[in-house]
Every structure is written in C-alpha cells, then in structure tokens.
C-alpha cells in the first residue's frame, strides 16, 4: 500500500513537472519584456540576422526565431492551422510569395499602412512588391526574391540559346554526337512544374487567370506554352526522370556531367563552387522563350507578414523592417545565397564576388511575372500540377480545355481537390 502511495506521489510530481516545463520555458524567453515570435523556414544564417536586430532594438523587444519545416507545404500547414485557431503566439510570419492572397482574404494577416508601408515600398524592386500586394493593399514586406535562369555548360555550348526550340535543338544535337547534352528541369507533380508552366505562358504573352484572379482564361498563347512543355518532355534530350525531378535532382544531374542545360534557381551557382572543375564552365543566361522575346520568369521568394492575432503589432512591424533591412538582406544574400529585394543591395561592391550573376537576376526581375494572385492559389496550383502531370502526355488542346474547367471550379471553391 505504501509503495502505491509513493508511486502516486511520483506520478503527481511528474505531471506537475510536465505542466510546469512549457510555462517556465515561456517565461525564460521573454525576459519580462516583449517577445516577437518570428516563424520562418530553416535558413542557415538567419539567427545572425535576428541577433543583429535584437541588438538594434536595444531591449525594446526581443525577436525569437521559431524554425518551420524545410518544405513549403509543411510551413504553410503549420501556420495556417494555428492562424485558423486564432493563435496569438505567432507575430511575424515568413510567407512564400504565393500565400499572400489566401491569408489576406482569410483575414489572418495585417495590412501594412502609413509610414511602415512607405518604408517597405522605398527602394524595393517592383515585382517582389507585387507579390506582397492583394487587391491594391500591401500585406507583406519582401525579404528575398528568386528567379530562375538558364544554366549551361560553356565548354559544350558556345552561345546560349534564345528560344525554347533552339535550346531543345542544341541539346538534341549534343546527344546525337554522343556528348552530355541532357536538359534538366522540374517536371514532378508539384509547385516546380507550375513555376515552369507559368514562366512559359507569361513569356509567350498568355494568361492563365484574369487580372482579379476570379476567372480561368487559359488562352491560345497558353495552349502554345503547353505544346512547348510537351515538346521538351518528349524530346530525346530531356532528363529521363524529368517527370519525377525537383530542383535538387536537376542540379545533381548537371553536376554529375550528364546535362548541358539546366533551368533552375540561382542557388545552384553557390552549390557548384564546391566542384571547381565543373564551376569553371558553369555559365548562365536569361531564360529562353517560345517566341524569342524577353522572358517573363516566375518570381519566387519570401515576404514577411504580421499575424492578425498578434498582441504586439507595433513591435512586430518594427521587427519586420529590421529583418528585411538592407544589412539583413546583404547578409542573407552573401551567406545564404538568396537574391535581395532592395535595389541598393545589388549595387553593394561586396555583392559582385558573391553574386556574379546579379545583373542577369536584376534584368530578369524587372520583367518577371507573378503567379496567379488568388486566395485559392493552393487549389489552382494543385489542379495545374495534377493536370500537367506527367508532362509527356499533355495533349495541348484537350489539356487546355480541362485546365480551364477545373481551374474555374477551384476558384469558386466548388470542385474536389485532387
């Protein structure tokens, strides 16, 4: 009997400890002052940026970095679930550029107004700024941006191709000569395929959704883009596992010496520097287009938003301004390789060595295109990647028609998501 009593007491103590630990931990991080909780994916040198901003805040508030999962779906899921439950412990959220409309429409993030708004707009490149706006209001502060370039092997390709057909032709010629001539890109059923498709459509002057994001268009120019995608997917020079390839497999295929062309984000440049022999011939050029006109590449990146349920909105906005300030962006660009959204950072002399392709990025950015801006973007993206997958079996006309119907359903939140 006594033994049982002791055990019960032990259990009670353990239960109390379980309850107490999170409480104590919560107290510990606050230092009695205001805590601004930032939720961002795992960025290697972000803690240094946070520390810098905390030093500048001088005790006014303390930013705490909460790491979200590596994959975009995991990040979105966690934030959205907590926002739906009106969680007031999240203050600043690092959002993928495609989530702005959805979270704004749901009333989960605060609008940027007044002096904060003008400070965000000041010196920021227009396209990234567009990704943070919805229905004419600003809901986010662009942190980093991203555009894909065409990467090619300088020793195999003397002059980079300007058009889509040229690129496929060059690659096929290389393959026919028994040289490494494959094209690596993202063709798996996921967001990367949507990025590829959006770039092709916009560069060709086509439209997927109308300006307000309420009506599915998918015009003839978009159907031409579907043809181009099919041509790539069925070419002799395409990476054999294209229909299952994401960014990293594409990079690795080219680094292994099998590919001559790669459509990918600029992080591949930093990664290539680990192999000096390969990096010596690793060149970049603007993205090729169907018509040969200037490309309108899909813009990626991260915007900071402030949760609507935060208890410290003023401090949160202030923290955002620091986290995306020129100094922070420069550190992120040089250490983590993400392209800045402030024009002045590109002009910094230190950027020339860390970012030799910065001019190509800046040029591409000025002409970049934003993915369809609609609260139903997640549905739109899922529908597009499902219907286009695998890209080799696209039937341009029929696939275009199917896209139009199912996209309209997705926009009306009517249909079933695949």
């Amino acid at each position, binding site marked *: *009997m006594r*033994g*049982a009593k002791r055990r019960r007491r032990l259990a009670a103590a353990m239960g109390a400890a379980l309850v107490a630990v999170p409480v104590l931990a919560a107290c510990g991080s606050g230092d009695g002052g205001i805590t601004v909780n930032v939720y961002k994916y795992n960025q290697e040198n972000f803690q240094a940026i946070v520390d810098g901003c905390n030093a500048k805040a001088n005790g006014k508030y303390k930013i705490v970095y909460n790491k979200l999962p590596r994959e975009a*779906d995991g990040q979105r*899921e966690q934030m*959205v*679930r907590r926002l*739906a439950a009106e969680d007031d412990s999240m203050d600043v959220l690092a959002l993928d550029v495609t989530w702005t409309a*959805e979270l704004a*429409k*749901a*009333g989960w993030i605060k609008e940027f107004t007044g002096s904060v708004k003008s400070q965000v707009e000041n010196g920021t490149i227009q396209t990234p700024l567009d990704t943070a706006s919805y229905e004419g209001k600003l809901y986010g502060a662009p942190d980093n941006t991203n555009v894909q370039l065409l990467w090619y092997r300088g020793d195999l390709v003397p002059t980079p191709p300007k058009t889509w057909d040229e690129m496929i032709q060059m690659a096929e010629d290389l393959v026919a000569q028994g040289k490494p001539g494959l094209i690596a890109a993202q063709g*798996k*059923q*996921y967001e990367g395929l949507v990025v590829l498709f959006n770039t092709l459509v916009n560069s060709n002057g086509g439209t997927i959704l109308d300006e307000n994001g309420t009506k599915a268009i998918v015009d003839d120019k978009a159907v031409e883009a579907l043809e181009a995608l099919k041509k790539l997917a069925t070419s002799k020079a395409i990476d054999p*596992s294209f*229909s*299952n390839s994401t960014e990293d497999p594409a990079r690795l295929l080219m680094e292994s010496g099998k590919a001559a062309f790669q459509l990918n984000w600029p992080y591949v440049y930093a990664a290539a520097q680990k192999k000096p022999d390969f990096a010596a011939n690793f060149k970049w050029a603007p993205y090729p287009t169907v018509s040969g006109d200037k490309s309108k590449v899909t813009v990626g990146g991260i915007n900071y938003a402030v949760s609507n349920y935060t208890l410290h909105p003023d401090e949160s906005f202030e923290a955002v301004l620091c986290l995306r300030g020129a100094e922070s962006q420069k550190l992120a660009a040089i250490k983590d390789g993400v392209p800045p959204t402030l024009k002045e950072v590109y002009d910094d002399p230190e950027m020339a060595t860390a970012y030799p392709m910065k001019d190509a990025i800046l040029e591409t950015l000025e002409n970049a295109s934003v993915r369809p801006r609609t*609260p*139903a973007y*997640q*549905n739109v993206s*899922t529908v597009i990647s*499902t219907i286009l*997958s*695998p890209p080799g079996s696209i039937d341009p006309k029929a696939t275009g028609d199917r896209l139009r119907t199912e996209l309209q359903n997705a926009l009306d*939140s*009517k*249909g*079933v*998501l*695949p």
Partner: protein
Amino acid sequence: MSQSTTEKPEVATEPVAAKKKVVLSEGKRAERKLGWWLCAPAAITMVAVTGWPIIYSIWLSLQRYDLKFPDRTEFIGFDNYVTVLASPYWWNAVWVTAVLTVISVAIELVLGMGLALIMHRALVGRGLVRTTSLIPYGIVTIVAGFSWRFAWTPGTGYLAELAGGEPVLTEKLPALMVVILAEVWKTTPFMALLLMAGLALVPDDLLKAAAMDGAGPWQRFVKVTLPIMKPAILVALLFRTLDAFRIFDNLFVLTAGSQGTSSVSMLTYNNLIKGLNLGIGSTMSVLIFLMVAAIAFIFIKLFGTAAPGSDDGGKR
C-alpha cells in the same frame, strides 16, 4: 513490473468484497445502478471526444465553408455530397483504397496464417522466432515508409537498381504495388499474432483424433483447424480491413497521392488541411465514416454468431 503484479490482488480485493455486500443487501437492481454509475464517466468522455466531433463534421458537411473565403459561408444542404460523389477524383480514390485494402488484406491473411503456423509449431527458439517476426510491426510506419521510398528511388535505392533503375513510384500501378508491398511487410506480423491466438484454441486431441480417422494434413487444416479458428480469423480480418481502408501514412510518404494514387483519407486531408475547405473535407470524412460502418456491418452479418460481441457471455 514484478512489484506491481504482486500488489494488484491486494488492492483489488477490497472493492470486490464491497460489491458482494451490496448484492447481498440490495439485490440486482442496486448492482445495475452502480454499474451505470461506474460506466458514466467513461461513457460521457466517449460521447464528448467522439460523438461531438462526428456531429460537428456532419454539420460542417452541410455548409459551404471555406476558410479562404470566410464571407461566403452558408448552409447549402446536400450540395457538398453531390459535388464529392460526382467527382472523378473521389471515385478514383475509392477504387484505389478498395484495391489496396482487398489485395493487401488477402495477401496478409495467407502469409499471416503461414507465419502463425510456423510460430505455433516452432520447437526450438520459439521466443526468437516470434520476436523477429514482430520487428516490422514495431517500426514506426512513417520511418518504414521513408526507408521504402529511398529504397525505390533510382540513384539511392537498392530495390530501384534491382528493378532496372526505373522510377517506379512515378507511375500509378507500380507505385500502388510498392504501397501494397510496404503494407503487407508491415502488418503481416500483426495478422499472424491474432491468428496464432486462434490456433491456440484448436485442441491437439481433436487433430490427433482426425488423424486417426485418416484425415491428411490439408483436411485437418481445412476441416478442423479453420472452423474452430473462425472467430479469430474474423477479428483479424475486421481489424485489418478497417485499418487498411484508412491507409494514410505509407501513402503520404511514398507517393503523397501523386499520379492518382490518393486514398480516400489522403484526398480528405488534401481538401481539409491543404485546401482549407472544411465543407468538402467534412463531407468526405462523413462518407468515409459511412463506408467504415458498412464494412463493419457486413462483417458482422457475414460471420453471424462468430462475430465479436454477438455472444452474451458478459450479461447475467
């Protein structure tokens, strides 16, 4: 552990004695009343944690309710059901789930029976055989799923190399076969364990008597062992069918529902959590609930009195 087992009877004697006194003094009715009182906390908790969510999701399924468009929320009756039941994605998912369930449970039953017989008859190292065969069941499904995925990914996996370097997980049928393989590998031990409990019910004398009467090994298995094991087989099949029907984790890791390999649970998750469409998602949950209920009902009907819960052993 040993301490607790020695103490248990000591603790348990008191309430039993008290209960007997009540029976003696106030009779059956008082005992029934006490029974109700003792059940009440559990029953109330059950209703609170299962009943309420079920009712709430039925209520949600009758509404147009999309978190992305909070101002469009309205009551729409059975429109969500029409949308879901008219969707080719839903029926594809139903088929995928049904095929996965039927094939994997059938293979598991055969393999599990074999494994159970081996474990039952093992003369040497019985404990070792039982422990090793249970290892797959002890591994967390997500972890096992990841190892299957890497094993089937060209470039990193040995199974993919054996299969000729083809990315099997990118095509519908091969991907489904991999999922079935992963499921069978994982849950056959569970099946075997349940069946072994059934095998223990078969008296040795009966088998010996059958052998004396000239029954061969196959006849003894089919005519003696199987009929006696029927209740155990039913329980094993019922558990596994319901389990397999709700398949989610293996699929989530292996294909994430791409190339039309979504199961009904996967599709519900996509609509509810990814799409934030509470209306459509709840409709799917309700439909899954109905299907699971139907499976349970069919099993009970099919096996008649052999079904669990149809005997009145516990009642007085």
